Protein backbone atom coordinates (compact mmCIF):
# COMPACT_ATOMS: atom_id res chain seq x y z
CA UNK A 1 0.00 0.00 0.00
CA UNK A 2 1.30 3.40 -0.93
CA UNK A 3 0.57 5.60 2.05
CA UNK A 4 1.52 8.74 0.18
CA UNK A 5 -1.53 8.14 -2.01
CA UNK A 6 -3.68 7.50 1.07
CA UNK A 7 -2.98 10.46 3.30
CA UNK A 8 -6.15 9.91 5.30
CA UNK A 9 -4.97 6.47 6.48
CA UNK A 10 -1.58 7.98 7.36
CA UNK A 11 -3.33 10.76 9.31
CA UNK A 12 -5.48 8.23 11.13
CA UNK A 13 -2.43 6.19 12.08
CA UNK A 14 -0.63 9.28 13.35
CA UNK A 15 -3.65 10.35 15.34
CA UNK A 16 -3.84 6.82 16.69
CA UNK A 17 -0.29 6.82 18.02
CA UNK A 18 -0.81 10.34 19.39
CA UNK A 19 -3.97 9.24 21.14
CA UNK A 20 -6.04 11.89 19.39
CA UNK A 21 -8.90 9.65 18.22
CA UNK A 22 -12.31 9.10 19.68
CA UNK A 23 -13.05 5.62 21.01
CA UNK A 24 -15.03 4.73 17.85
CA UNK A 25 -12.23 5.90 15.57
CA UNK A 26 -9.74 4.05 17.67
CA UNK A 27 -11.71 0.82 17.36
CA UNK A 28 -11.87 1.20 13.59
CA UNK A 29 -8.12 1.76 13.33
CA UNK A 30 -7.42 -1.25 15.54
CA UNK A 31 -9.61 -3.36 13.26
CA UNK A 32 -7.68 -2.07 10.23
CA UNK A 33 -4.35 -2.86 11.86
CA UNK A 34 -5.52 -6.34 12.75
CA UNK A 35 -6.79 -7.06 9.26
CA UNK A 36 -4.05 -5.40 7.21
CA UNK A 37 -0.37 -6.26 7.93
CA UNK A 38 0.87 -3.42 5.69
CA UNK A 39 -1.00 -0.92 7.81
CA UNK A 40 0.28 -2.64 10.93
CA UNK A 41 3.85 -2.38 9.59
CA UNK A 42 3.38 1.28 8.76
CA UNK A 43 2.06 1.94 12.24
CA UNK A 44 5.21 0.45 13.75
CA UNK A 45 7.40 2.61 11.51
CA UNK A 46 5.58 5.72 12.63
CA UNK A 47 5.82 4.72 16.27
CA UNK A 48 9.55 4.14 16.01
CA UNK A 49 10.07 7.46 14.29
CA UNK A 50 8.09 9.24 16.97
CA UNK A 51 9.92 7.38 19.73
CA UNK A 52 13.28 8.36 18.29
CA UNK A 53 12.47 12.05 18.31
CA UNK A 54 10.81 11.86 21.72
CA UNK A 55 13.93 10.17 23.10
CA UNK A 56 16.06 13.24 22.50
CA UNK A 57 17.15 14.51 25.92
CA UNK A 58 15.85 17.97 26.81
CA UNK A 59 18.46 20.67 26.35
CA UNK A 60 18.96 23.03 29.24
CA UNK A 61 19.69 26.69 28.64
CA UNK A 62 23.29 27.67 29.49
CA UNK A 63 23.78 28.95 33.04
CA UNK A 64 24.91 32.36 31.83
CA UNK A 65 21.73 32.72 29.81
CA UNK A 66 19.60 31.88 32.84
CA UNK A 67 21.59 34.37 34.91
CA UNK A 68 21.11 36.96 32.18
CA UNK A 69 17.37 36.41 32.22
CA UNK A 70 17.26 36.77 36.01
CA UNK A 71 19.15 40.03 35.72
CA UNK A 72 16.77 41.11 33.00
CA UNK A 73 13.79 40.44 35.28
CA UNK A 74 15.38 42.34 38.17
CA UNK A 75 16.17 45.29 35.92
CA UNK A 76 12.66 45.10 34.64
CA UNK A 77 11.14 45.33 38.10
CA UNK A 78 13.48 48.18 39.05
CA UNK A 79 12.64 49.85 35.79
CA UNK A 80 8.95 49.46 36.49
CA UNK A 81 9.29 51.31 39.82
CA UNK A 82 11.41 53.96 38.18
CA UNK A 83 8.86 54.19 35.45
CA UNK A 84 6.07 54.89 37.96
CA UNK A 85 8.14 57.66 39.54
CA UNK A 86 8.94 59.05 36.14
CA UNK A 87 5.24 59.07 35.28
CA UNK A 88 4.44 61.17 38.35
CA UNK A 89 7.27 63.57 37.65
CA UNK A 90 6.36 63.70 34.01
CA UNK A 91 2.76 64.63 34.79
CA UNK A 92 4.03 67.42 37.02
CA UNK A 93 6.20 68.88 34.29
CA UNK A 94 3.90 68.18 31.40
CA UNK A 95 2.03 71.45 31.70
CA UNK A 96 5.26 73.47 31.83
CA UNK A 97 6.60 71.70 28.79
CA UNK A 98 3.38 72.31 26.90
CA UNK A 99 3.43 76.00 27.75
CA UNK A 100 7.06 76.27 26.67
CA UNK A 101 6.36 74.45 23.45
CA UNK A 102 3.40 76.71 22.72
CA UNK A 103 5.53 79.79 23.37
CA UNK A 104 8.23 78.58 21.04
CA UNK A 105 5.69 77.80 18.33
CA UNK A 106 4.09 81.24 18.67
CA UNK A 107 7.53 82.86 18.49
CA UNK A 108 8.46 80.88 15.41
CA UNK A 109 5.17 81.75 13.73
CA UNK A 110 5.81 85.41 14.48
CA UNK A 111 9.30 85.26 13.02
CA UNK A 112 8.01 83.40 10.00
CA UNK A 113 5.27 85.98 9.47
CA UNK A 114 7.81 88.79 9.74
CA UNK A 115 10.06 87.10 7.20
CA UNK A 116 7.15 86.55 4.83
CA UNK A 117 6.07 90.17 5.22
CA UNK A 118 9.62 91.31 4.63
CA UNK A 119 9.74 89.31 1.41
CA UNK A 120 6.33 90.10 -0.06
CA UNK A 121 5.55 93.32 1.76
CA UNK A 122 4.77 96.36 -0.45
CA UNK A 123 7.65 98.53 0.66
CA UNK A 124 10.27 95.84 0.56
CA UNK A 125 13.14 96.76 -1.61
CA UNK A 126 16.02 94.82 -0.25
CA UNK A 127 15.08 91.46 -1.70
CA UNK A 128 16.17 90.91 -5.27
CA UNK A 129 13.15 90.55 -7.51
CA UNK A 130 14.08 88.77 -10.66
CA UNK A 131 11.56 89.99 -13.19
CA UNK A 132 13.26 88.43 -16.17
CA UNK A 133 13.40 84.73 -16.85
CA UNK A 134 16.57 84.26 -18.87
CA UNK A 135 16.77 81.96 -21.83
CA UNK A 136 17.01 78.33 -20.62
CA UNK A 137 20.62 77.84 -21.63
CA UNK A 138 21.71 81.16 -20.27
CA UNK A 139 22.01 81.84 -16.55
CA UNK A 140 23.50 85.25 -15.92
CA UNK A 141 24.59 86.43 -12.52
CA UNK A 142 22.03 89.01 -11.61
CA UNK A 143 23.37 92.02 -9.83
CA UNK A 144 21.16 92.67 -6.83
CA UNK A 145 19.03 95.76 -6.94
CA UNK A 146 21.00 98.60 -5.56
CA UNK A 147 19.01 100.01 -2.70
CA UNK A 148 20.66 102.37 -0.35
CA UNK A 149 20.00 105.27 1.89
CA UNK A 150 21.12 108.51 0.30
CA UNK A 151 21.28 111.99 1.59
CA UNK A 152 17.84 113.51 1.27
CA UNK A 153 17.92 116.96 -0.23
CA UNK A 154 15.52 119.76 0.59
CA UNK A 155 13.98 119.43 -2.83
CA UNK A 156 13.27 115.71 -2.35
CA UNK A 157 11.47 116.34 0.90
CA UNK A 158 9.42 119.19 -0.35
CA UNK A 159 6.62 117.51 -2.26
CA UNK A 160 4.21 114.65 -1.45
CA UNK A 161 4.23 112.17 -4.29
CA UNK A 162 6.59 111.10 -6.95
CA UNK A 163 9.94 112.24 -5.75
CA UNK A 164 12.77 111.18 -7.93
CA UNK A 165 16.36 111.99 -8.37
CA UNK A 166 17.87 111.40 -11.78
CA UNK A 167 21.63 111.43 -11.95
CA UNK A 168 23.16 111.63 -15.38
CA UNK A 169 26.84 111.57 -16.22
CA UNK A 170 28.24 112.39 -19.62
CA UNK A 171 31.56 113.00 -21.35
CA UNK A 172 29.93 115.66 -23.48
CA UNK A 173 28.71 117.78 -20.62
CA UNK A 174 28.56 121.11 -22.40
CA UNK A 175 26.53 119.91 -25.37
CA UNK A 176 24.19 117.80 -23.33
CA UNK A 177 23.67 120.46 -20.65
CA UNK A 178 22.89 122.99 -23.34
CA UNK A 179 20.34 120.59 -24.78
CA UNK A 180 18.70 120.10 -21.39
CA UNK A 181 18.64 123.82 -20.74
CA UNK A 182 17.02 124.51 -24.04
CA UNK A 183 14.53 121.70 -23.52
CA UNK A 184 13.44 123.15 -20.21
CA UNK A 185 13.22 126.68 -21.56
CA UNK A 186 11.00 125.55 -24.38
CA UNK A 187 8.70 123.48 -22.16
CA UNK A 188 6.48 125.96 -20.37
CA UNK A 189 4.51 123.23 -18.66
CA UNK A 190 7.60 122.43 -16.61
CA UNK A 191 8.49 124.52 -13.56
CA UNK A 192 12.14 124.23 -12.86
CA UNK A 193 15.06 125.69 -10.96
CA UNK A 194 18.57 125.35 -12.26
CA UNK A 195 21.55 125.43 -9.92
CA UNK A 196 25.08 125.52 -11.31
CA UNK A 197 27.37 126.01 -8.36
CA UNK A 198 30.36 124.23 -9.77
CA UNK A 199 31.74 123.67 -13.23
CA UNK A 200 30.77 120.44 -14.94
CA UNK A 201 27.66 120.00 -12.81
CA UNK A 202 24.08 121.23 -13.25
CA UNK A 203 21.33 120.64 -10.77
CA UNK A 204 17.74 120.95 -11.99
CA UNK A 205 14.67 120.71 -9.78
CA UNK A 206 11.62 120.12 -11.91
CA UNK A 207 7.95 120.20 -10.83
CA UNK A 208 5.52 118.89 -13.39
CA UNK A 209 2.62 116.63 -14.16
CA UNK A 210 3.09 113.02 -15.16
CA UNK A 211 2.26 114.01 -18.73
CA UNK A 212 4.88 116.72 -18.54
CA UNK A 213 7.46 114.26 -17.34
CA UNK A 214 6.61 111.84 -20.11
CA UNK A 215 7.07 114.60 -22.65
CA UNK A 216 10.37 115.61 -21.12
CA UNK A 217 11.65 112.06 -21.14
CA UNK A 218 10.63 111.73 -24.73
CA UNK A 219 12.55 114.87 -25.50
CA UNK A 220 15.59 113.63 -23.61
CA UNK A 221 15.64 110.36 -25.50
CA UNK A 222 17.67 111.71 -28.46
CA UNK A 223 20.60 112.60 -26.19
CA UNK A 224 20.33 109.59 -23.89
CA UNK A 225 23.09 107.70 -25.64
CA UNK A 226 25.44 110.50 -24.69
CA UNK A 227 25.15 109.57 -21.02
CA UNK A 228 27.75 107.17 -19.69
CA UNK A 229 25.77 106.60 -16.55
CA UNK A 230 22.09 107.12 -15.80
CA UNK A 231 20.71 106.51 -12.37
CA UNK A 232 17.19 107.03 -11.05
CA UNK A 233 16.52 107.09 -7.34
CA UNK A 234 12.92 106.56 -6.25
CA UNK A 235 11.77 107.11 -2.72
CA UNK A 236 9.91 104.35 -0.92
CA UNK A 237 7.35 104.57 1.87
CA UNK A 238 10.09 104.12 4.41
CA UNK A 239 11.77 107.35 5.28
CA UNK A 240 15.33 107.43 4.02
CA UNK A 241 14.97 104.27 1.92
CA UNK A 242 15.24 104.36 -1.84
CA UNK A 243 15.26 102.13 -4.87
CA UNK A 244 18.03 102.86 -7.31
CA UNK A 245 17.58 101.95 -10.95
CA UNK A 246 20.92 101.85 -12.67
CA UNK A 247 21.19 102.36 -16.45
CA UNK A 248 17.67 103.73 -16.42
CA UNK A 249 16.09 104.72 -19.72
CA UNK A 250 13.66 107.59 -20.41
CA UNK A 251 10.76 105.30 -21.14
CA UNK A 252 11.33 103.49 -17.84
CA UNK A 253 11.26 106.79 -15.94
CA UNK A 254 8.00 107.69 -17.65
CA UNK A 255 6.57 104.28 -16.94
CA UNK A 256 7.45 104.54 -13.25
CA UNK A 257 5.96 108.04 -12.98
CA UNK A 258 2.76 106.82 -14.59
CA UNK A 259 2.01 104.40 -11.76
CA UNK A 260 -0.79 105.67 -9.54
CA UNK A 261 0.49 104.41 -6.21
CA UNK A 262 3.82 104.38 -4.45
CA UNK A 263 3.67 100.57 -4.16
CA UNK A 264 3.34 100.16 -7.89
CA UNK A 265 6.11 102.67 -8.56
CA UNK A 266 8.45 100.88 -6.20
CA UNK A 267 7.60 97.49 -7.63
CA UNK A 268 8.17 98.67 -11.19
CA UNK A 269 11.38 100.43 -10.20
CA UNK A 270 12.59 97.20 -8.63
CA UNK A 271 11.73 95.30 -11.79
CA UNK A 272 13.55 97.79 -13.97
CA UNK A 273 16.55 97.68 -11.66
CA UNK A 274 16.71 93.92 -12.01
CA UNK A 275 16.15 93.97 -15.76
CA UNK A 276 18.82 96.58 -16.26
CA UNK A 277 21.32 94.74 -14.12
CA UNK A 278 20.73 91.62 -16.18
CA UNK A 279 20.96 93.61 -19.37
CA UNK A 280 24.39 94.90 -18.46
CA UNK A 281 25.78 91.38 -18.59
CA UNK A 282 23.52 90.00 -21.29
CA UNK A 283 23.53 90.48 -25.05
CA UNK A 284 20.79 92.79 -26.28
CA UNK A 285 18.93 90.19 -28.33
CA UNK A 286 18.79 87.75 -25.42
CA UNK A 287 17.59 90.44 -23.09
CA UNK A 288 14.86 91.51 -25.46
CA UNK A 289 13.77 87.94 -25.99
CA UNK A 290 13.66 87.27 -22.29
CA UNK A 291 11.85 90.51 -21.57
CA UNK A 292 9.26 89.92 -24.23
CA UNK A 293 8.64 86.39 -23.02
CA UNK A 294 8.23 87.16 -19.39
CA UNK A 295 7.01 90.75 -19.26
CA UNK A 296 5.35 91.66 -22.55
CA UNK A 297 4.04 94.87 -21.07
CA UNK A 298 7.58 96.21 -20.62
CA UNK A 299 9.12 97.56 -23.73
CA UNK A 300 12.56 98.89 -24.45
CA UNK A 301 12.64 102.01 -26.49
CA UNK A 302 15.46 102.48 -28.97
CA UNK A 303 18.04 105.10 -28.20
CA UNK A 304 18.03 107.83 -30.85
CA UNK A 305 21.28 109.44 -31.83
CA UNK A 306 21.79 113.10 -31.07
CA UNK A 307 21.77 114.92 -34.36
CA UNK A 308 21.20 118.46 -33.26
CA UNK A 309 21.66 120.60 -30.18
CA UNK A 310 18.48 122.51 -30.87
CA UNK A 311 14.90 121.72 -30.05
CA UNK A 312 11.93 123.58 -31.43
CA UNK A 313 8.96 121.73 -29.94
CA UNK A 314 6.58 124.14 -28.22
CA UNK A 315 3.28 122.38 -28.62
CA UNK A 316 2.13 121.05 -25.25
CA UNK A 317 1.91 117.27 -25.19
CA UNK A 318 -1.14 115.52 -23.81
CA UNK A 319 -1.48 115.95 -20.05
CA UNK A 320 1.47 118.26 -19.78
CA UNK A 321 -0.58 120.92 -18.05
CA UNK A 322 -2.24 118.60 -15.59
CA UNK A 323 -1.79 118.88 -11.83
CA UNK A 324 1.80 118.81 -10.61
CA UNK A 325 2.53 115.37 -9.32
CA UNK A 326 6.21 114.95 -9.96
CA UNK A 327 9.12 116.48 -8.13
CA UNK A 328 12.21 115.47 -10.03
CA UNK A 329 15.76 116.43 -9.30
CA UNK A 330 18.04 116.01 -12.30
CA UNK A 331 21.78 116.21 -11.77
CA UNK A 332 23.88 116.36 -14.90
CA UNK A 333 27.60 115.94 -14.34
CA UNK A 334 30.57 115.78 -16.66
CA UNK A 335 33.72 113.79 -16.19
CA UNK A 336 36.22 115.38 -13.89
Amino acid at each position, binding site marked *: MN*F*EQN*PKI*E*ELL*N*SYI*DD*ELSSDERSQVQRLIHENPTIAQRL*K*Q*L*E*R*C*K*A*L*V*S*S*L*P*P*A*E*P*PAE*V*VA*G*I*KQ*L*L*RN*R*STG*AIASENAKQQGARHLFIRQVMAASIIIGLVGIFAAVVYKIVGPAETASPIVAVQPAPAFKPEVTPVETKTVAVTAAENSTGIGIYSLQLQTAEFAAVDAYVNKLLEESPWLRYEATKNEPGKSDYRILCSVGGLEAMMSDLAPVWSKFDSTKLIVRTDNVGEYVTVMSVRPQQIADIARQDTIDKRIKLANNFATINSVERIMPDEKMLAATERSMPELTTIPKPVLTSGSKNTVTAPKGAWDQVQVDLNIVVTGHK
Partner: protein
Amino acid sequence: MNVEDAVLVQKWRKGDTNAIEKLVCKYQGRIYNLILRICSNPDDAAELLQDTIVKLIENIDKFQSRSSFYTWAFRIAVNLTLNYRKRKATVGFTSLDAESAADDKQARQGLAAILSDDKSPDPAQVAENKELCELIQKGIGKLDDEHRAIIVLRDIEGMDYEQIAEVLGTELGTVKSRLSRARAALRQILEAL
Protein backbone atom coordinates in the same frame (compact mmCIF):
# COMPACT_ATOMS: atom_id res chain seq x y z
CA MET B 1 -5.88 27.33 31.54
CA ASN B 2 -3.53 26.05 34.18
CA VAL B 3 -4.80 27.53 37.45
CA GLU B 4 -1.37 28.08 38.88
CA ASP B 5 -0.28 29.91 35.74
CA ALA B 6 -3.43 32.03 35.77
CA VAL B 7 -2.79 33.12 39.35
CA LEU B 8 0.82 33.98 38.58
CA VAL B 9 -0.20 35.99 35.53
CA GLN B 10 -2.67 37.97 37.65
CA LYS B 11 0.02 38.69 40.22
CA TRP B 12 2.48 39.58 37.47
CA ARG B 13 0.05 42.12 36.06
CA LYS B 14 -0.23 43.69 39.49
CA GLY B 15 3.53 44.12 39.56
CA ASP B 16 4.52 41.07 41.58
CA THR B 17 8.09 40.45 40.43
CA ASN B 18 8.18 37.05 42.13
CA ALA B 19 5.30 35.93 39.93
CA ILE B 20 7.23 36.92 36.84
CA GLU B 21 10.28 34.97 37.98
CA LYS B 22 8.22 31.91 38.84
CA LEU B 23 6.54 31.80 35.44
CA VAL B 24 9.76 32.42 33.55
CA CYS B 25 11.66 29.83 35.55
CA LYS B 26 8.89 27.33 34.98
CA TYR B 27 8.99 27.55 31.22
CA GLN B 28 12.38 28.89 30.20
CA GLY B 29 13.97 25.42 29.95
CA ARG B 30 11.21 24.03 27.78
CA ILE B 31 11.13 27.14 25.64
CA TYR B 32 14.89 26.92 25.16
CA ASN B 33 14.63 23.26 24.19
CA LEU B 34 11.87 24.01 21.70
CA ILE B 35 13.85 26.87 20.13
CA LEU B 36 17.05 24.85 19.97
CA ARG B 37 15.35 21.90 18.26
CA ILE B 38 13.85 24.23 15.69
CA CYS B 39 16.88 26.42 14.99
CA SER B 40 19.61 23.79 15.66
CA ASN B 41 22.04 26.40 16.97
CA PRO B 42 22.72 26.86 20.74
CA ASP B 43 23.89 30.47 20.39
CA ASP B 44 20.86 31.45 18.35
CA ALA B 45 18.63 29.54 20.77
CA ALA B 46 20.06 31.43 23.76
CA GLU B 47 19.48 34.76 22.07
CA LEU B 48 15.99 33.81 20.95
CA LEU B 49 15.14 32.65 24.46
CA GLN B 50 16.03 36.06 25.84
CA ASP B 51 14.07 37.74 23.07
CA THR B 52 11.09 35.56 23.95
CA ILE B 53 11.28 36.49 27.63
CA VAL B 54 11.49 40.17 26.76
CA LYS B 55 8.47 39.81 24.47
CA LEU B 56 6.54 38.04 27.22
CA ILE B 57 7.29 40.83 29.68
CA GLU B 58 6.47 43.55 27.18
CA ASN B 59 3.21 41.98 26.06
CA ILE B 60 1.82 40.52 29.26
CA ASP B 61 -0.81 43.28 29.31
CA LYS B 62 -2.02 42.15 25.89
CA PHE B 63 -2.31 38.53 26.95
CA GLN B 64 -5.97 37.57 27.14
CA SER B 65 -6.72 34.61 29.30
CA ARG B 66 -8.76 32.90 26.60
CA SER B 67 -5.75 30.68 25.91
CA SER B 68 -3.23 29.35 28.40
CA PHE B 69 -0.07 31.22 29.29
CA TYR B 70 1.83 28.13 28.22
CA THR B 71 0.56 28.08 24.61
CA TRP B 72 0.79 31.90 24.41
CA ALA B 73 4.43 31.82 25.49
CA PHE B 74 5.25 29.00 23.09
CA ARG B 75 3.49 30.77 20.26
CA ILE B 76 5.72 33.80 20.81
CA ALA B 77 8.80 31.58 20.92
CA VAL B 78 7.88 29.66 17.75
CA ASN B 79 7.04 32.84 15.85
CA LEU B 80 10.28 34.51 16.86
CA THR B 81 12.28 31.44 15.91
CA LEU B 82 10.61 30.88 12.56
CA ASN B 83 10.89 34.58 11.70
CA TYR B 84 14.55 34.50 12.66
CA ARG B 85 15.14 31.49 10.43
CA LYS B 86 13.39 33.23 7.54
CA ARG B 87 15.63 36.28 7.95
CA LYS B 88 18.69 34.09 8.18
CA ALA B 89 17.68 32.18 5.06
CA THR B 90 17.16 35.48 3.24
CA VAL B 91 20.71 36.59 3.92
CA GLY B 92 22.08 33.19 2.94
CA PHE B 93 23.05 31.63 6.28
CA THR B 94 22.49 28.01 7.11
CA SER B 95 22.80 26.29 10.43
CA LEU B 96 26.32 24.95 10.70
CA ASP B 97 25.34 22.78 13.59
CA ALA B 98 22.81 20.89 11.55
CA GLU B 99 25.38 20.26 8.85
CA SER B 100 28.24 19.47 11.23
CA ALA B 101 26.36 16.94 13.28
CA ALA B 102 28.08 13.69 13.91
CA ASP B 103 28.57 11.58 10.89
CA ASP B 104 29.55 8.58 12.88
CA LYS B 105 29.20 5.29 11.04
CA GLN B 106 28.18 3.41 14.15
CA ALA B 107 25.47 5.95 14.88
CA ARG B 108 24.11 5.61 11.37
CA GLN B 109 24.05 1.86 11.66
CA GLY B 110 22.30 2.15 15.00
CA LEU B 111 19.72 4.45 13.52
CA ALA B 112 19.08 2.11 10.61
CA ALA B 113 18.63 -0.78 13.03
CA ILE B 114 16.15 1.12 15.12
CA LEU B 115 14.16 2.15 12.06
CA SER B 116 13.98 -1.40 10.72
CA ASP B 117 13.52 -3.15 14.07
CA ASP B 118 10.07 -4.24 15.05
CA LYS B 119 10.58 -3.08 18.61
CA SER B 120 10.38 0.55 19.60
CA PRO B 121 13.69 2.06 20.70
CA ASP B 122 14.50 2.42 24.34
CA PRO B 123 14.41 6.16 25.07
CA ALA B 124 17.09 5.90 27.74
CA GLN B 125 19.49 4.15 25.38
CA VAL B 126 18.86 6.71 22.66
CA ALA B 127 19.38 9.61 25.07
CA GLU B 128 22.70 8.13 26.20
CA ASN B 129 23.95 7.77 22.64
CA LYS B 130 25.18 11.29 21.88
CA GLU B 131 26.07 10.53 18.27
CA LEU B 132 22.66 9.04 17.62
CA CYS B 133 20.98 12.09 19.17
CA GLU B 134 23.02 14.36 16.93
CA LEU B 135 22.03 12.29 13.94
CA ILE B 136 18.35 12.60 14.84
CA GLN B 137 18.75 16.33 15.34
CA LYS B 138 20.44 16.46 11.96
CA GLY B 139 17.42 14.74 10.44
CA ILE B 140 15.06 17.22 12.11
CA GLY B 141 17.26 20.03 10.82
CA LYS B 142 16.72 18.84 7.27
CA LEU B 143 12.95 19.26 7.51
CA ASP B 144 11.38 22.45 6.30
CA ASP B 145 10.40 24.95 9.00
CA GLU B 146 6.70 24.05 9.13
CA HIS B 147 7.39 20.35 9.52
CA ARG B 148 10.20 20.93 11.96
CA ALA B 149 8.06 23.09 14.23
CA ILE B 150 5.15 20.67 14.32
CA ILE B 151 7.39 17.63 14.98
CA VAL B 152 9.10 19.45 17.85
CA LEU B 153 5.82 20.66 19.35
CA ARG B 154 4.29 17.22 19.22
CA ASP B 155 7.10 14.71 19.70
CA ILE B 156 9.50 16.70 21.85
CA GLU B 157 7.30 19.14 23.72
CA GLY B 158 4.39 16.67 23.82
CA MET B 159 1.61 19.11 23.04
CA ASP B 160 -1.77 17.78 22.00
CA TYR B 161 -3.22 18.69 18.63
CA GLU B 162 -5.40 21.46 20.00
CA GLN B 163 -2.48 23.15 21.70
CA ILE B 164 -0.39 22.83 18.55
CA ALA B 165 -3.18 24.44 16.54
CA GLU B 166 -3.22 27.30 19.05
CA VAL B 167 0.52 27.77 18.98
CA LEU B 168 0.77 27.66 15.20
CA GLY B 169 -2.47 29.54 14.65
CA THR B 170 -3.90 26.87 12.37
CA GLU B 171 -6.92 24.59 12.18
CA LEU B 172 -6.99 21.20 13.85
CA GLY B 173 -7.29 19.49 10.46
CA THR B 174 -4.19 21.29 9.27
CA VAL B 175 -2.29 20.05 12.29
CA LYS B 176 -3.27 16.44 11.51
CA SER B 177 -2.30 16.58 7.86
CA ARG B 178 0.88 18.58 8.44
CA LEU B 179 2.07 16.30 11.21
CA SER B 180 1.40 13.26 9.07
CA ARG B 181 3.47 14.70 6.21
CA ALA B 182 6.20 15.81 8.60
CA ARG B 183 6.64 12.35 10.10
CA ALA B 184 6.70 10.72 6.69
CA ALA B 185 9.34 13.20 5.55
CA LEU B 186 11.42 12.70 8.69
CA ARG B 187 11.39 8.94 8.29
CA GLN B 188 12.61 9.29 4.72
CA ILE B 189 15.37 11.64 5.84
CA LEU B 190 16.48 9.41 8.68
CA GLU B 191 16.52 6.37 6.44
CA ALA B 192 18.66 8.25 3.95
CA LEU B 193 21.24 9.32 6.53
